[in-house]
């Protein structure tokens, strides 16, 4: 039994590597077709992020929002709600923290804390809406959350234009954040800020929440089988609302942290896309909070590698979209090399059986 698990685990690693390898092969072909410096481009893509400390810092910086939305989506999906509100929650969270940053004078230590907490709370509130529409009126969560994202964006712009906008700014942007509101940088030479620590804490806490507390237990049971949860005496309504609020809180928090950690003013002119990225991360992590960092790192590495490639070589930044897509699809492909996997399972199971027989 132990042997079987080992062999399977080793196989899973080989499989993932093979998927990445194949995806890179395809990427290389695409690069080969269009680039005069394909080798350099590929090297920049693969090794770029670890070629300089600052570049690795970029990976970590990008991981922070991905960790939050990845966790957010994991929790929301765990309750079997395809709520895509993390996109909108992230956005309004970012806006909420900007509001606190620009309109309130608070001491340095407290200012960002209030900012991101408010961001989280706003996220929690908006994430509840699709769930309520579903529970009360049976409206499809995926669709209503998609629509709500647009509504939140326009509401956000209204709020920005009429309450936060800096008329001196040459663009639709808020007033500048005071230094007291900004998050501390923690790695000299990079922009990595204390948000990374908060994110890691969030991963641990959400892992514990989902797997070691009764609320997480309730969410998982509701997600796996709502009828069973109801039958077991769980308040399904409340559990779903709570799960969506926790998810929304995380996404909002992520927005606030991204804003106060990486920006000097609120500048988004469209939804920033981290919600969709969160879906990618969560699915790669199979909704398991403990695996979210792996998914987030993977995606961040891919993106930064692609950036470095398109900055430093002649590969256009749009090609990168294709490469990312290929890599993501192949890595998440369950049936990729499944014949081999089934063969291993078969061989090991049969070996187990005959071992048992011989023992007898």
């Amino acid at each position, binding site marked *: 039994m132990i042997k079987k698990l080992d062999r399977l685990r080793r196989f899973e690693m080989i499989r993932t590597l093979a998927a990445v390898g194949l995806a890179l092969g395809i990427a290389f072909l695409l690069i080969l077709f269009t680039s005069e*410096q394909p*080798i*350099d481009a590929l*090297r*920049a893509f693969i*090794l*770029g992020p670890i*070629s300089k400390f*600052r*570049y690795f810092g*970029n990976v970590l*910086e*990008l991981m922070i929002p991905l960790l939050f939305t990845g966790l957010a989506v994991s929790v929301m999906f765990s309750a079997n709600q395809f709520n895509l509100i993390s996109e909108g929650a992230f956005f309004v969270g970012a806006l909420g923290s900007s509001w606190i940053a620009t309109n309130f004078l608070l001491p340095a230590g407290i200012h960002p804390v209030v900012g991101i907490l408010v961001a989280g709370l706003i996220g929690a509130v908006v994430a509840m809406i699709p769930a309520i529409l579903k529970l009360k009126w049976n409206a499809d969560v995926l669709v209503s959350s998609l629509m709500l994202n647009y509504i939140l964006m*326009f509401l956000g*712009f209204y709020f920005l*234009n*009429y309450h936060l*906008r800096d*008329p*001196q*700014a*040459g*663009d*639709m942007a808020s007033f*500048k954040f005071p230094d007291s509101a900004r998050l501390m940088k923690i790695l000299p030479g990079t*922009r990595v800020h204390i948000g990374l620590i908060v994110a890691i804490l969030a991963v641990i806490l959400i892992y514990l929440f989902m797997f070691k507390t009764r609320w997480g237990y309730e969410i998982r049971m509701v997600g796996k089988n709502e009828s069973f949860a109801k039958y077991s005496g769980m308040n399904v309504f409340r559990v779903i609302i709570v799960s969506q609020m926790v998810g929304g809180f995380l996404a909002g928090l992520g927005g606030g942290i*991204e804003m106060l950690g*990486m*920006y*000097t*003013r609120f*500048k*988004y*002119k*469209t939804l*920033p*896309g981290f919600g969709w990225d969160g879906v990618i991360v969560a699915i790669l992590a199979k909704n398991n909070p403990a695996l979210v960092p792996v998914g987030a790192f993977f995606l961040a590495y891919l993106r930064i590698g692609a*950036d*470095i*490639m*398109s*900055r*430093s*070589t002649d590969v*256009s*930044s*749009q090609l990168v979209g294709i490469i990312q897509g290929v890599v993501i699809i192949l890595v998440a492909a369950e049936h990729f090399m499944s014949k081999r996997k089934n063969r291993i399972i078969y061989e090991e199971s049969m070996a187990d059986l005959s071992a048992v027989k011989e023992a007898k």
Partner: protein
Amino acid sequence: AGSDEPAPVTETDVTKVVLLINGNLGDRSFFDSAEVGFNQLVEDYAGKVEVKIIEMGFDNSKWEPGLIDASEAGYDVIVVGTWQMQELLEDIAPQYPDNNYIIFDTVANPEITNVYSMVYKQNECAFLAGAVAASVAGNEPIGFLGGMDILVINDFLVGYIEGAQSVNPDVQVKISYIGDFNDSAKGKEMALAQYQSGVAIGFNVAGQAGLGQIDAAAEVNKLAIGVDSDQEALFRDMGEDAKADLIATSALKEVGNSLYRAIEMHMDGTLVYGEAEALGLAEGAVGYVKSQWIIDNGYADMVDELVVKIAAGDIVVSSANGLTTEELTTLRDAVK
């Protein structure tokens, strides 16, 4: 090693220039115009200038690494544009005092001595557009189709309104913002909505989305005014003469020319870093297309006269700079 960054410059007789685009090429106006200017430069100064253009995409958080990379790669001149890059540049330029930076379409802090800034008086070319529009429209309303409710667009708007008012003080302006610079179908619908509510001629300032206005104009057989580059020529390129015929003129923002001029001055040693210039009609950094239509309909003299007056400072066009949302709303409501 180090293939992920350009090799450091060794020869001194070649001027190495990098243009960092905080977005993507293909907007057919702003950044593309910069590219065209640089291409011209490379052609005219073959062997003397090398230009690299880097697209950094739309994600704000990727711009700082891009700028730092460029700053460390040994370029002679690093060019960035738009207000969105301004604060980043103000942060980073002082850390690389030996580098030369040019920023366009915004003004950096003048205390930073290695940055040259230039802004465009788009309100001036928009003034011309407004004057043409109001002349054409007579007593009918005119249209303004903006991409987004942001400063640059509103600077056009302010100039447009003033230009129109200079012809007809009671002019009515229908103003819509598409909310997007890509969705040309939406641009078409909003333009049609304007035409159908009586607008005689519209002015689009919305990148690709604004091109929808030309389609709309063709549908209702009314006139349109283009922006940034010569949109009439664009439609002739696409083989759509019927549509091109309806473009009265385009208000030009000659980013490419201004960059060409700046790099040329840099090579001559006449560009003063630490300085900011506002480039308008006088400098040829903004302008208008003296189209066949303008000539045929007898507006050429009027517009040329306005150009001279503005360039000479006889007419001072207001700017949207510093207007609050409320003030803008008041302005827009006044011409409703």
